[in-house]
């Protein structure tokens, strides 16, 4: 058996196909596995030239369940590709080891990936983009596209390639590195401040209650509360919503229904104004 070296072209082919197809046949049974089958299927001639039986074994190895956060977790298909190339070169890489590495890494990377990408990076970037969107200008949308893709394409390519090169050590490099905790904490802070900013800028609660005598407004509750602290009613509503969802475990739907009830009652009692 001859040495199989992963060329840049092969890695790029695998990367693009993984990035595009990871969820193409997503379903609860094998989740992202069909994409791995495709990814390795495309490289089967490179890994096992002319050996149809080995090629079939290669693809069959990746039929069972696989699921992770597909983008930051793309390091796992990278690692597995690195291992498969070693195996194809004749190194003693048991099938069980490949399965074990996949199973061991997919959980942690699903957790980290979801927390970092849709849980931190995307909302922060979107919050900034929303803040830039004023009077129907598309600048926020363009900003988001440029920054998001400008960051994520190099990052995912780096992770995938590092996975191929370092094998399982790559995972340790990332999971075991305490730098990421400090980065996440710092990003979180940016996120919290930015979310506070857009909550203030975009949410509105208008109190309609006025105490009027002889055509003179004696108390305008809205003015009064906003005089205490600008947008105080919005802040209180934000905290209340957070408390209900985080501490009382209300679902978003339940909170929305509460909003609806409050809006109806508030309108007919005149306590809330449009």
């Amino acid at each position, binding site marked *: 058996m001859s040495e199989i070296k992963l060329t840049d072209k092969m890695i790029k082919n695998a990367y693009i196909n993984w990035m595009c197809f990871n969820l193409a046949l997503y379903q609860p049974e094998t989740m992202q596995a*069909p994409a791995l089958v495709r990814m390795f299927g495309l490289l089967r001639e490179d890994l096992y030239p002319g050996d149809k039986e080995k090629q079939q074994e290669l693809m069959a190895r990746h039929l069972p369940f696989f699921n992770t956060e597909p983008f930051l977790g793309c390091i796992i298909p990278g690692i597995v590709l690195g291992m498969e190339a070693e195996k194809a070169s004749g190194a003693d890489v048991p099938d069980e080891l490949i399965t074990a590495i996949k199973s061991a890494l997919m959980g942690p990377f699903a957790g980290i990936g979801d927390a970092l990408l849709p849980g931190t990076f*995307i909302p922060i970037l979107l919050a900034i*983009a929303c803040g830039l969107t004023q009077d129907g200008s598309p600048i926020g949308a363009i900003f988001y*596209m440029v920054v998001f893709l400008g960051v994520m394409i190099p990052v995912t390519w780096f992770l995938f390639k590092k996975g191929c090169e370092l094998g399982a050590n790559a995972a340790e490099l990332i999971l075991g590195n305490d730098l990421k905790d400090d980065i996440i904490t710092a990003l979180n802070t940016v996120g919290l401040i930015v979310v506070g900013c857009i909550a203030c800028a975009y949410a509105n609660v208008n109190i309609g209650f006025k105490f009027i005598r002889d055509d003179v407004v004696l108390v305008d509750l809205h003015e009064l509360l906003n005089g205490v602290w600008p947008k105080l009613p*919005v802040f209180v509503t934000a905290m209340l919503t957070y408390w209900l969802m985080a501490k009382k475990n209300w679902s978003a739907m339940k909170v929305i229904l509460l909003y609806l009830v409050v809006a109806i009652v508030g309108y007919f009692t005149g306590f809330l104004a449009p």
Partner: protein
Amino acid sequence: MQISLIQAILIALLGYLTFIHTPFLGGGLVGWYCIGRPLVSALFIGIILGNIPKAMELGLYIQLIFIGLITPGGSITPDMNLATYVALPLGVAANMDAASTVALSLIVANVANIMATPNFAMTMIPVNIQKRMVEEGKLEEAVWVPIWGNGVKFLFRFIPTFVCIYYGQAGIEWIVKNSPQWLIDIMTIFGNPMCLVGFAILLKLMVKKPTDLIYFTFGFALVGALGADMITVLVFALVIALIQFQIGRAAKKGGAV
């Protein structure tokens, strides 16, 4: 304005292409997570309908609701994709206000959930075909299954989106025209604080300890009390984050802060 047949087809097609499971527009990174975000989709829907400012205005508010949307493996979450691609074009066409468009998008997002399970069930068909092909040694055919198999997802995206916008526009226009003022007012009161739900989902994720809420309050105060713009807030946020990062690093090195 009227959404033409071509416009409805283009919008429904874009809705499919930016669905979470569609591979053909650069996969999830370019599709779902980039162009598929309501704020970005709004730009493209605005271009198709020839009204970018209105689309951006409505897209902004739909985006704020779904800003904290996370779709962990296998769980069924509100259908942001269908909500955006149905509520936004209809909102632009019927010249709806942001609050009503948001209310419509919420209804669509939750009703559309009924499609998730049949969608998954039907996807099992190509997955099982691929499995059988590998076992029978039809390797080249197995490689191609994720491409044609995605047709299942196309059916569950393109058709409902197209039907809702093309055949739903008359109904929405009628509703908008015939709504009494009190209903419009209630919708506005209802929609005004709605984005706070989206932010609460985010806060739930980001707030690790109660003192973290002070950062939220800080951002809030910068805008509310000082009238700062987005960029200024971002600069402040980055300064604080940098200091925090450096303190964190110093503490781990065991040195004095």
